[in-house]
C-alpha cells in the first residue's frame, strides 16, 4: 500500500532527529512492513544523506523515524527536566513568571516588527 509522507511531516521528522543523540533501535521485536514512499527528489536526497550520516540506509533511517513517531508522547516532566528544578530554585512565582514571559514576548514581537518595518 503506498504511503505518502508530506514534506511537512518529513521536515518535522528530520528536525526532531537533528536534535537526538542517535537513532535508537526499537526495543521490542520488529515486523516487516513493506511500503512505497512518494517523496520529492530533494527529500529523497536529504534522506539518503541523513541515512548515510547515521550509518544506515534509507529504509533503516525511515523505519527509525516511524518507530520514534509511533512512540507515546513524552511526559512534561521528561521534557522539562532540570528547567523545572531551576525554576523552583529561582524563587519566582507562577504569576511572576507569566508576567515576565508576556513582557519578553511583546518585546520580541516589537523587535520583529521593527526589523521587518511593519
Amino acid at each position, binding site marked *: 500500500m503506498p504511503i505518502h509522507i508530506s514534506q511537512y511531516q518529513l521536515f518535522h521528522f528530520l528536525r526532531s532527529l537533528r536534535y537526538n543523540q542517535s537513532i535508537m533501535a526499537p526495543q521490542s521485536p520488529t515486523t516487516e512492513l513493506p511500503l512505497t514512499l512518494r517523496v520529492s527528489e530533494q527529500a529523497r536526497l536529504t534522506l539518503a544523506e541523513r541515512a548515510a550520516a547515521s550509518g544506515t540506509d534509507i529504509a533503516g533511517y525511515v523505519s527509525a523515524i516511524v518507530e520514534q513517531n509511533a512512540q507515546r508522547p513524552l511526559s512534561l516532566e521528561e521534557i522539562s527536566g532540570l528547567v523545572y528544578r531551576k525554576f523552583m530554585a529561582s524563587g519566582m512565582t507562577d504569576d511572576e513568571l507569566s508576567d515576565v514571559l508576556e513582557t519578553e*514576548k511583546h518585546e520580541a514581537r516589537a523587535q520583529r516588527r521593527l526589523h521587518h518595518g511593519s
Partner: protein
Amino acid sequence: MSFPLKVIYDCNIFVQALININGPGGACVRRALAKEVTLVLSEPLLAEIRQAPTKPTPARLGVTIPRTETLIENLLKVAAITRIVPEQFTYARDPDDAHYVNLALAAEATVIVSRDKDLLSLMESGRPEAAAFQVRFPFLRILDPVQFLKEPRMLERS
C-alpha cells in the same frame, strides 16, 4: 456525538509549561498531551514557541533549542495542524494576537487559552471593542489557564 474541545494555546502557555510543569500552564499542556482536548497549532504559533530559547528568562532557566524541539515534537503527536489561516480579524492593540483569533476561526476552535492581557481584554465587559468582538464571534471564548482548567466540560457536540 461528542468530541474533545478544540483549543488554541498562546505560545507562552507552552513555554510556561516547560518551565513550571506543575503550574496552570503545565496542567493545560498535560491535557493536550493526554488528548483530553484537541490542541490546534499553526506554523506561526510554532515559530513563536521556537523563539523561547532566545528570550532572557527561558534561556536563563535552561530552555534550550533541543528541549523546545522535543516539546514541539511531542505536541505534534497529538495536535491538529491548521495550515491555511485566513485573516478575518485584525487587532490594532497587538496585531500578532489576531493570529490566535484567526486560527481559532479557521480551525473552528471555541476556546483560546492565554495570559496575554490584550487578548483577555476582548472578553471584558464595558469596552466597546470587546463588545463588538463578542457580538461578532459569540462562540469564541478567551480564557486564562486557571479559568480554562475550571471548565466543567472538555467535550463539545458535533
